[in-house]
C-alpha cells in the first residue's frame, strides 16, 4: 500500500515565472521513509506544504493515507503530523502550554492533553524545561518540541521539513535517534533534507529533486551505483607515495589518482575486499605501512553532483525559530 502519492504536481509563482513544482511525482510505501533530497529552492518545502494541505497546487493530484488531499483536506489533517522547516510554536508560552494547547486542538480532552504533554516532554528530554517560555529554548530544544507537537495524536503519515537544519552535530544525532524510533513505531515518513548523509542514514529510499522535479530516485545504494563502483583509497608517508602508487596500479589495473597534499592515492577496484587484501599484502612486503586504507563507495555527495550538476550548497541557516527565522522568504 502506498501511503503518499503525488502525481504531476505543478505550482508556479509570479504568474508562471517561478516554477516551484514542475510536474513532481513521488510515491511512498506505507511504513517506510522517503528522503526528499534537494538543494535550496528545489521545491522541498513546497512539496511538503502541498501534501500537508497548506498549499493548493496549480494542477496535479495528491493522496495521503488513502485520502485525496485536494478534495478532503480536513480528513487528511486528522491523520498527518507536520513539523515545518522552522519551528512553529508560541514563543511566549512554555513548552507545556504549547503541547497542551495543541493537544486540545487535536480534540483530546483536558486530562488526556495534559497526560500526552507530560509523556512527550519526557520522551524528548524536555521535562526540565517544560515550564520555561519557548523564547528561552535553544534551537535544538525548539526543534524537539516542534516535533513533539506533531506527534500528539500518533499520525499515520509524518512530514518533517529539514528536521536537523541548524542543529549542531550532537543535536542532529539526537534528532536522528528520535526519528529512528518513530520509524520503528511504523509511521510513514517523508523527510526533506539538504544533508546527503542524513538521507543516507534515515531514509529507505531517496528522491533527488531539483527545479521542482524528481530527477532520480532509489535506495542510497542504487543511487551510488549509478555513479560508479568502489574505489580503494590509501594514505601513506610522503616518501612512499611513488612506490605505493605503483603497487596500487598493479592491483587496480587503472592509473591511480594521487593527491600529494594529503598524500592520498585512490583508484577504482573491481573485487572489493579481495583487492584490498591484495594491496595490503603487497604494501607489507614493500615495508610500507599505510596511515589509512579503505574501500570507498561513492558518497551521496558524488551522486548529487553528478545528478544536479552542482555541489550541494551548504548554507548557514539562521538559528531555528529565532529572530532571524522571520527573515525567510
Amino acid at each position, binding site marked *: 500500500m502506498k501511503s503518499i502519492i503525488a502525481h504531476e504536481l505543478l505550482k508556479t509563482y509570479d504568474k508562471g515565472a517561478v516554477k516551484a513544482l514542475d510536474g513532481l511525482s513521488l510515491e511512498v510505501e506505507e511504513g517506510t521513509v522517503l528522503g526528499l533530497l534537494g538543494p535550496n529552492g528545489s521545491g522541498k518545502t513546497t512539496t511538503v506544504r502541498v501534501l500537508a494541505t497548506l498549499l*493548493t497546487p496549480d494542477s496535479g493530484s495528491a493522496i495521503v493515507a488513502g485520502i485525496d488531499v485536494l478534495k478532503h483536506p480536513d480528513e487528511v*489533517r486528522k491523520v498527518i503530523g507536520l513539523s515545518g522547516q522552522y519551528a*512553529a*510554536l508560541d*514563543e511566549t*508560552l512554555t513548552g507545556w502550554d504549547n503541547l497542551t494547547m*495543541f493537544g486540545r*486542538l*487535536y480534540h483530546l480532552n483536558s486530562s488526556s492533553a495534559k497526560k500526552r504533554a507530560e509523556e512527550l516532554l519526557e520522551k524528548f528530554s524536555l521535562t526540565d524545561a517544560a515550564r520555561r*517560555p519557548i523564547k528561552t529554548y535553544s534551537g535544538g530544544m525548539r526543534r524537539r518540541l516542534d516535533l513533539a507537537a506533531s506527534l500528539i495524536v500518533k499520525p499515520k503519515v509524518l512530514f518533517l521539513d529539514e528536521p536537523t537544519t541548524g542543529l549542531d552535530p550532537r543535536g542532529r544525532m539526537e534528532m536522528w535517534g528520535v526519528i529512528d524510533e518513530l520509524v520503528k513505531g511504523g509511521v510513514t515518513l517523508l523527510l526533506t533534507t539538504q544533508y546527503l548523509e542524513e538521507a543516507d542514514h534515515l531514509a529507505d529510499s531517496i528522491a533527488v529533486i531539483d527545479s521542482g522535479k524528481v530527477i532520480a530516485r532509489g535506495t542510497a545504494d542504487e543511487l551510488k551505483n549509478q555513479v560508479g563502483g568502489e574505489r580503494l583509497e590509501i594514505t601513506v608517508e610522503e616518501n612512499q607515495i611513488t612506490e605505493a602508487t605503483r603497487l596500487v596500479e598493479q592491483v587496480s589495473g587503472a592509473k591511480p589518482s594521487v593527491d600529494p597534499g594529503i598524500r592520498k592515492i585512490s583508484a577504482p577496484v573491481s573485487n572489493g575486499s579481495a583487492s584490498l587484501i591484495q594491496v595490503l599484502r603487497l604494501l607489507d612486503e614493500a615495508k610500507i605501512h599505510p596511515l589509512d586504507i579503505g574501500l570507498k563507495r561513492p558518497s551521496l555527495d558524488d551522486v548529487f553532483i553528478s545528478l544536479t550538476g552542482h555541489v550541494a550548497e551548504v548554507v548557514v541557516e539562521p538559528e531555528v525559530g529565532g529572530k532571524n527565522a522571520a527573515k525567510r522568504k
Partner: protein
Amino acid sequence: MLQSVSDFLVITKRQLLQMIRIPEVLIFATIQPAMFVLLFRYVFGGAIDSGVEGGYVQLLMPGIFVQTVAFTLAATAVGLAADMQKGLIDRFRSLPISRSAVVIGRTVGDTLQNVVTLIVMGLVGFLVGWRPSSGPVKIFLGFLFLLAFGYSMSWIGVIIGLSVREERVAQNLVFMTVFPLTFLSNAFAPTTGMPKILQYFAEWNPVSTMVAACRELFGTENVFGATANSWPSQNPILMSLIYMFLLVAIFAPISVRKYVKVSK
C-alpha cells in the same frame, strides 16, 4: 458545532495565557491610554473650553475610550502578523480544527484584553474627575458598546494581519490608518474648526458616532458633535450599531476565507 466552540476557546485561552506569561504587554497597553487620559486632561484640558458641566474630562473620556478600543484593530493585526511570520498560522492550518477557530479565537481574545484595559482607564478617569451621570445601566451599556466596537474593528485587523504577514508592516499600516481616524473625529475637539469637507468626513466617521453614542450613554451632552446636522450625528447610537454590524458582516466572512487560503 460544539467542537468549533471548543476550538476557538482554546485559541482565546492561549491569548489569556500570553497575558499571564508576559504581563508587560498588558501593562503597556494600559499605561498608554492612561497616559493619554492624563495628558489630554491636564495639557489640553485647560485650553479647551468645553462648556459642559464637570469640565472637559467628561467629553474626553468617551473619546479616549473609543480611541483605545479602535486600536483593537492594531492588536489583532500585529498579533496575527506575528503568528504568520512565525509559521504558527501554518501549523494551526495543518490541524483538524474548524476554519474559523483561529480568527474568532483571536478577535475574542483581543476583546477580553479590552475588558482589563477599559477597567483601568475608567478608574484613572474617575481619579481625574470623570463622573458618568447616567446611572449604572446606561454606564454598563456604554462599556458594552465600547467592547462591541472594539470587537468589530478587530475583524479589520484580521484582514490586515493575514495580508501583510509581517509584524512591523502591520504595526505601521495600522497606526497610519487608526490615528487619522481618531483625530479626524469629535473625540478630542469640536469638529467645527475643521474645513467643511473634513467636517462631513468627521461626522460620518464611525469613531465620531461611537464617541457621540458613548457621551450619550455616559450622560454628557455632545457639544463637540453636530455641526452640519447630519443624520449620523443626530442618531449616533443607531449609526454606530449599523457600522458595527456592517464591519462584522463584511469583514468576518472575508477574514475566514482569507485564513483558509492564506499561504506564504
